[in-house]
């Protein structure tokens, strides 16, 4: 190919069309369409952004560049609709992740207790089934007992309001563990 085949206006036209697309996209990003779908929801494509673009990491900071991108890390993990968009319980069960149980010992294994506690709830919601098994995979008994939950049947009054305010189950759920929007993962036993 020689230079006579070049049509200088062609790249300019292509770029202009691209530019129009970008402008339109920008207009919608600015909220110009008042009836956009899921106006207040973060679209899937914008979840788990790289640290430099997440709004709290400083993109000017050199160390920010060294941090792993969550999207890359989560690519092979089971999905979930909320939180990190990762189902951590399933990831552990499947063996997709193998977190250590001791600071510097790969062999240490957790003391797992397989005991479900059924909490009968008021109203029409299904009862809560609390599985010790999944919790003791991650945590030690002393993380919850006795400071957060008295280990005795009927001794712990828990309300959704408390949980929303970050107490009881809400000490983890809604901060690092799946939030209350996933009602059925706890309220799972029909009456």
């Amino acid at each position, binding site marked *: 190919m020689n*230079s006579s085949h*070049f049509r*200088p206006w062609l*790249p*300019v036209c292509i*770029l202009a069309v*691209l*530019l129009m697309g*970008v*402008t339109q*996209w*920008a207009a919608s*990003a*600015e*909220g110009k369409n008042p009836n956009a779908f899921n106006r*207040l929801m973060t679209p899937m494509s*914008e*979840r*788990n*952004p790289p*640290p430099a673009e*997440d*709004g*709290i*990491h*400083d993109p000017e*900071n050199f*160390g*920010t560049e060294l*941090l792993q991108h*969550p999207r890359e*890390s*989560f690519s092979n993990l089971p999905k979930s609709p*909320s*939180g*990190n968009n*990762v189902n951590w319980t399933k990831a552990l069960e499947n063996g997709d*992740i193998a*977190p*250590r*149980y001791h*600071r*510097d010992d790969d062999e240490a294994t*957790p003391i797992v207790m397989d005991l479900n506690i059924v909490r009968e709830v008021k109203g029409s919601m299904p009862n809560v089934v609390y599985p010790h098994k999944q919790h003791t995979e*991650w*945590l*030690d008994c*002393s*993380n919850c007992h006795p400071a957060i939950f008295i280990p005795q049947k009927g001794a712990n009054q828990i309300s959704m309001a408390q949980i*929303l*305010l*970050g107490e009881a189950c*809400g*000490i*983890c759920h*809604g*901060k*690092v563990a799946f*939030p*209350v929007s996933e009602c059925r993962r706890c309220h799972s036993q029909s009456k």
Partner: protein
Amino acid sequence: MNYLSIHKSFLIATGVLLLALAVAWPGGQLRAEFGDVVINNYSDEAGMRPVIFPHWFHRIRYRCKVCHGDLGFKFEAGGNDINMLKIIDGEFCGACHNGEIAWAVENCDVCHSARPGTPTQVHESTLQKLIAPVDGAQGSKE
């Protein structure tokens, strides 16, 4: 038309494109990872960027019990009164970030990586969302 002018038109158009992108890019949104903890007990005062602790990164490698049981981290953002002296002495983060289990304290800006002035918080927590509505100052999603 010669190569130079083709090159020029490309350059100009690319420049305009980049400018349009820069203007259009949704800036100032807070949408970092669920569970990222910002710790700004002393950082701002000391002229350092606040610390961001990524829970997601650590839970892939460690179960909760290791830090919240063995190392004594309370379940409260900013509630542990951590300082660099304690870390260097092997407490809190320093139990692993000692150059043996994980990289050591000389990598200041890998932890001290938040935008200056970011307050202590558990990012994206339910409580944070309840206090700061979606169109509020904290989690502005326009």
